């Protein structure tokens, strides 16, 4: 396994690179005047990315299907959110549904 120095260097490299990704948007944004159209595209892009994260985090685990319990929990959450249930209810329903399904043996 990698020694301590190697781990520190690798962690620092990942931290620096990640910071660069995070920092670029706010800085570049202030340098160039974004047209309302471009602002709109940025907002759409962020929603698209978050939706894709929801989909992959729900359905995919280690390049395979995540099993039925997690998608079922997120589906219940989605239905509740669609009906404008409070945020707390939505999130707890996801966790409780998934946990309950696993308790009875659903993967």
């Amino acid at each position, binding site marked *: *396994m*990698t020694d301590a120095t*190697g*781990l520190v260097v*690798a*962690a*620092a490299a*990942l*931290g620096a*690179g*990640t*910071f660069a*990704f*995070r*920092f*670029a*948007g*706010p800085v570049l*944004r*202030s340098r160039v005047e*974004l047209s*309302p159209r*471009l602002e*709109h*595209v940025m*907002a*759409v*892009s*962020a*929603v*698209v*990315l*978050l*939706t*894709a*994260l*929801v989909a*992959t*985090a*729900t359905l995919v685990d280690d*390049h*395979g299907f995540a099993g039925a*319990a*997690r998608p079922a*929990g997120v589906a219940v*959450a*989605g239905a509740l959110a669609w009906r404008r249930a*409070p*945020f*707390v209810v*939505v*999130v707890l329903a*996801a*966790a*409780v*549904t998934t*946990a*309950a399904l*696993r*308790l009875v043996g659903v993967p």
Partner: protein
Amino acid sequence: MRSVWRTLAPGTARDIGLVCLADTIVGASFGAITVAAGLPLWLPTLLSVVVFAGASQFMFVAIVASGGNPFAAVAAGLLANARHLPFGFAVGDAIGTGWLHRLVGSHLMTDEAVAFTLAQREPDRRRAAYWACALALFGCWNVGVVVGAIGGASIGDTGAFGMDAAFPAVLLALVLPALRQAGMRTPALVGATVAVVAAPFLQAGLPVLLALLGVLVTRAWRVDPHHRESTPEPIREGATP
């Protein structure tokens, strides 16, 4: 930062608190898993402070613990974190101006903070939501990681509590009101489909980036942003009905 808490939309503080609770538990599992894999006690905390991006931290540890090349671990983590670049453009206004705000605010950027920010329309509330979520999560996540690293074995499988379903549910609840709109729904659904179909074949992180094809395919830039119908709705009015 006091004004941040005063400006928050009603209910948002409580919602952020719930997300903090869930992330503390996930952070604890990250600390426990890392130490259980035989990696040093300080590594989970170092990663959580300098990287502060959950998914990439789990990937980094999984690769290094299995004897993988640390360069591969860095590359995998960077790929997973590349989405922060477009996120930064979308929430840059909420982070604020001035170098201190930009440096600190950028480092604390997470999926959750971006989602809470997009849920607000007014500039003051966007800024408040961003900073409240970013600061609170940084605190909770790191406390959770330390507790998990030290508490180790006593933390069981968080899957048994359904914690893996909580993260997508949080993002879904925050993003859903935007998806009620036709202009948002089509690119989002196309993007999500592309990401899921690509996920079995590609390195983690890439499928989510490929979702941006949804923006291209639906030619979202051709929608007139001034047109009432196409303006992105705040994702959630005051976070709770």
